[in-house]
């Protein structure tokens, strides 16, 4: 497959998400209000704790972590499960399957367009705001490069988790249920709703090796120079974990999709 064709799918994705410009502004605004809520909650929590550092996280560490986790969440969010179930219902899934390209590949690249738009429009502004508000608490250096690489890995892992979950809809005809289970597990175990550093010791050891951590916690830790990512050894460990899960999940996703697609029953269309 030549890259030019892939990029043209991505470009179509970009144009599709830029279609609703007003929607994007509203999204940005709503997000800002959400961040204010997060800020006040954690400020109150730290104020009543009496100490400045809890589990190695100061208030500003926690804030930066959670704000960027939210931004990363918006950036990584995919509606594969919803889209697939709607495509099954309307029957247009068949058209996608007939395209002269592997379905998984096609879906991935068409979502990439949306990711690019979200990254530029939500992640980068949030990042800049955080930089200004915290007077440069985020170290700027090689970690930015590592962060970008880790984010690309996270993106692929996230996509594969989605693609492992979405075909279940083919069997169960349940969308909301499947999606909420997936989202709950990912948000809790990836550290997006509460930093992993706050988890009880035993739970943290388990969670540390699960793939969900690779989606939010690892890129953020690398960006903030935490979890031993400030030296080569630690960095390699984090990337190693991401890579292992990336390979495992891609293989599993491929296998599962190939099985599932044979079972597709589409009503009309």
């Amino acid at each position, binding site marked *: 497959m030549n890259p030019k064709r892939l990029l043209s799918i991505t470009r179509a994705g970009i144009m599709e998400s830029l279609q609703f410009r007003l929607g994007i502004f509203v999204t940005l605004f*709503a997000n800002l209000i959400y961040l204010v*809520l997060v800020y006040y909650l954690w400020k*109150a929590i730290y104020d009543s704790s009496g100490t400045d550092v809890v589990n190695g996280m100061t208030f500003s560490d926690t804030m930066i972590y959670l704000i960027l986790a939210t931004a990363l969440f918006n950036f990584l969010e995919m509606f594969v499960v919803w889209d697939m179930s709607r495509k099954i219902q309307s029957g247009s899934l068949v058209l996608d399957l007939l395209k002269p390209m592997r379905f998984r590949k096609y879906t991935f690249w068409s979502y990439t367009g949306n990711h690019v738009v979200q990254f530029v429009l939500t992640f980068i502004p949030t990042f800049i705001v955080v930089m200004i508000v915290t007077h440069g608490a985020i170290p700027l250096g090689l970690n930015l490069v590592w962060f970008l690489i880790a984010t690309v890995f996270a993106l692929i892992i996230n996509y594969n988790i989605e693609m492992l979950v979405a075909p279940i809809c083919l069997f169960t005809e349940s*969308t909301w249920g499947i999606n909420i289970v997936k989202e709950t597990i990912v948000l809790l175990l990836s550290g997006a709703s509460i930093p992993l550093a706050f988890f009880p010791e035993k739970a943290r050891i388990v969670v540390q090796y699960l793939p969900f951590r690779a989606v939010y916690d690892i890129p953020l830790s690398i960006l903030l120079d935490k979890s031993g990512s400030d030296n080569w050894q630690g960095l390699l460990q984090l990337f190693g974990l991401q890579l292992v899960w990336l390979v495992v999940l891609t293989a599993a996703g491929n296998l599962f999709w190939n099985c599932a697609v044979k079972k597709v029953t589409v009503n009309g269309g």
Partner: protein
Amino acid sequence: MRKRGLRFYARMYRKILVQDLKSKMSYRADFVISTFGMIMTNLSGFVTFMILFQNFPTINGWDYHHMLFLYGFSLVALTPVQCFFDNNWNLRFMVQSGDFIKYCFRPVNVFFYFISEVFDVKGLGQLAFGIGTIVYAWIKIGIPVTPLIILKLIVFLLTASLFMIALMNFAAATCFWIKGSGYVMVIMFRFKDFAKYPSSIFEGIFKIIFTFIIPIAFIAYYPSLVILTPDNVPLLSWISPLYGFVFVFLSYKFWMLGVRKYDFTGS
């Protein structure tokens, strides 16, 4: 068009409800998974709560059991919006695809017809969770059980539920004006997670915003104070029923304004 009485609408709601339940029953796997999903979200909420309290024993002067009460209160208060107003989530797809026009052709209230179409059974799981939490916290705090307090609890739970209904109506109706506004609903729905914290954490201008404009403080905090601090109930708690009705009424008007504005996007 002739004005229809409340009795007419009650009868119709029952009929639509039965149809909806019948069609739900035909997707049994979906029902089981959705219920499981609902339990999962509630469990994960509890886990987050536990982790938080393990690290920080009090939040803004509120101890564990009082916070638990507030949490249970918010869960119960959020049940009506989950059970009865779930169809708001489908609004934007209907509007975008043009299917929404079917609701405009019936000789009944458009809002009523649209909302009545879906009853969400899995919300009942959340109700059970919430009631369990309230009872547990109630016993631990040692609030006396008298008929008057129970009555107050029910009245203020219903009051509290009005605010989230109104918020979701507002959020859903934005899709009449803004295409691609789905995220507004998602984020509004996520705001509810903050209802379980005392709103005394907000300061300055945001205290006003989160009390009156996006009334997160009313989803659980102010109504629950009637039960939790009976000697020292702020004025806002007492006027919350009135404010709740006003808010729901405004959201209804806004929604209907959207309907009037609605024209086909075509499909």
